[in-house]
């Protein structure tokens, strides 16, 4: 067992005929994930990277049994694409697309939830369980199977950190990139219980960012319900207030959502704090050893 994806995951890539869709369909296949279908309106009947393309997700599901969607559709059409996947009965969608208006995400999130479907993302790297399946765009090179779970709001920073874990000989159980947009389908709070329940995860690495209160919420959840050791890093400690750090909505406003507030909350919840990304592997290794000894 792993988190959200496993050996039974069968992926349909929405927007497979676009450049990113094609590239990452190939990467997912190389990772060992069964990419069973693609969908692009009007391109039904063609093949991309050996994957059959359908005009609609419903056809893809009917013909291939796809049970997870990876969405690369441009932002103005992403809402429609997600609703299509939900209506086709797909319970898990990784939305890679960036710049989706949060008003769209609100309706996507609540519609999916009402229909029992989950979003990872948007604007996220997706999810990967080394040796099992990957849905999304995390580079294949960084992974190694193991027992460290990773949840992160960042994209490339996640790759950096997972790569660091690997270099230190620490394999990963499941690595989940939530995305840093204002509205995400799966938050730390949603993800923590999944890792708590995952027998293949010993230690959790939590990678946060300044802005919002997702890390503070995560700290509350860890304190209440999470029993495994956690090492946390929060990026943006030195970022200037009031400026937007990159595309995501990482804004420090009114003293809320600061690195301090987040680090304090996480520390008080029992997480060990890494001051820099390169400190994470050592701490994770130590926590794993301590846990093994108990």
């Amino acid at each position, binding site marked *: 067992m792993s988190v959200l994806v496993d050996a039974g995951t069968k992926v349909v890539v929405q927007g497979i005929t676009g450049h990113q869709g094609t590239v990452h369909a190939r990467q997912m296949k190389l990772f060992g994930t069964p990419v069973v279908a693609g969908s692009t309106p009007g391109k039904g009947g063609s093949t991309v990277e050996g994957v059959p393309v359908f005009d609609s997700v419903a056809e893809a599901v009917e013909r291939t049994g796809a049970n997870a969607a990876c969405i690369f559709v441009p932002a*103005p059409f992403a809402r429609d694409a997600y609703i299509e996947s939900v209506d086709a009965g797909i319970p898990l969608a990784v939305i890679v697309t960036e710049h989706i208006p949060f008003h769209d995400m*609100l309706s996507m999130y609540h519609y999916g939830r009402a229909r029992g479907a989950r979003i990872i993302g948007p604007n996220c790297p997706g999810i990967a369980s080394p040796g099992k399946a990957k849905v999304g765009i995390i*580079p294949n090179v960084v992974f190694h199977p193991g027992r460290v779970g990773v949840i992160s709001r960042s994209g490339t920073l996640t790759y950096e950190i997972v790569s660091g874990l690997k270099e230190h000989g620490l394999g990963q159980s499941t690595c989940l990139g939530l995305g840093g947009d204002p509205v995400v389908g799966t938050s730390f709070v949603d993800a923590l219980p999944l890792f708590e329940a995952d027998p293949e995860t010993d230690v959790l690495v939590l990678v946060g960012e300044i802005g919002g209160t997702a890390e503070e919420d995560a700290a509350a959840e860890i304190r209440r319900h999470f029993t495994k050791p956690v090492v946390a*890093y929060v*990026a943006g400690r030195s970022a200037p207030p009031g400026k937007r750090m990159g595309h995501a909505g990482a804004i420090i406003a009114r003293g809320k959502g600061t690195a301090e507030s987040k680090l304090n909350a996480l520390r008080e919840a029992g997480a060990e704090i890494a001051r820099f990304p390169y400190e994470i592997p050592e701490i994770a290794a130590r926590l794993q050893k301590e846990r093994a000894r108990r």
Partner: protein
Amino acid sequence: MVKLAEWRGKEIFQKYGIPTPEGRVVRSAEEAEKLVRAGTVPLPCVLKAQVLAGGRGKGGAVRFAASAEEARSAAQAILGLEFQGEKVRELLLEPKLPLAKEFYLSLTLDRSLRLPVLIASAQGGVEIESVAEGSILRLPIHPFTGLVGYERRRVVRAFGLSGPAAQSLDGLLTRLWTAFDREDAELVEINPLALVGDRIVALDAKVIIEDDAGFRHPEYAELLDDRTPLEEIAREKGIAFVQLDGNIGVIANGAGLTMATLDVLAEFGGRPGVFLDLGGTDDPAKVTEAFLLMAKARPSAVFLNIFGGVTRCDTVAKGLVEAMRQVPPTDRFPLVARIRGNNEAEGTAILREAGVTSVPDLKESVQAAVKAAQGAIAASPGGSR
């Protein structure tokens, strides 16, 4: 985010039927005097600087006038003031309404709940941060139902209104929700919202439109943000570019990695001057453009930290090499590069061929960049070829 000037916010309010004072935008003291003299704006009136920065009231940028002469001199006093680097070029001239009470009202996003939230306080006209938490009403609004009756009644009750004033507020709340929803706003804020006779009127308007919804709102495409000129150019090219006060230019991809890079840089005594988030791109030309933009900011050194995902290492290396070819001699700077991830080998090879060494360890590479900025060494020939 697209912050709208007060008068633009009020234009949107009017479009949705939210009452505002009947004002005029003026760009000179003469114009202000003329409008008052003609009776277009009745006396007494108020003149408000149209800047996006806060603190207008304290900064003397909101003044009252009881005559055309006063309006002229008030306008004169305000025009040309500067707020956080933003010069006052426009004034909003409005009748000063006889208000009985002031309230606070806003709609924004609650990220934790993933719901819009209505924030209301019977204490308006002051900074909402200074209002005790207990006297602030927070109502999450479900996007599938909109702002429903019982929620509107809670606001009416919190404001202690009844009769026509209550009805006026009830209608305004529905319209404010509609405006927030249809305009793809990040924030609509009315402070103060005033009781004038038995009508509820929006005396101020703060509206922020979400950038990402731009494809639905071409009407906002032209509006300026609080960006510096270079930031503006970057925006047009789809690159996140922020100017700070240090001397090291940082190019990274992804907000998280960019911030982590700044954290490490600060730890080793580096002062970031510009940072530039490439985001996800697969186009060497975009990388070249970003790099040339960085050159314009005249950094003492540039640290490039890329972890390849959507953005592949070879793409970045190609763009970088092309940029190095194009940078004019006057704009050259030392460069420290670190590229990891997808197609790392290919990217590293391309850089090596161009004479740039990728330093794979984050700590080491940051230390090299700090040294390079201090002029100790030019870690690589950078743009100096």
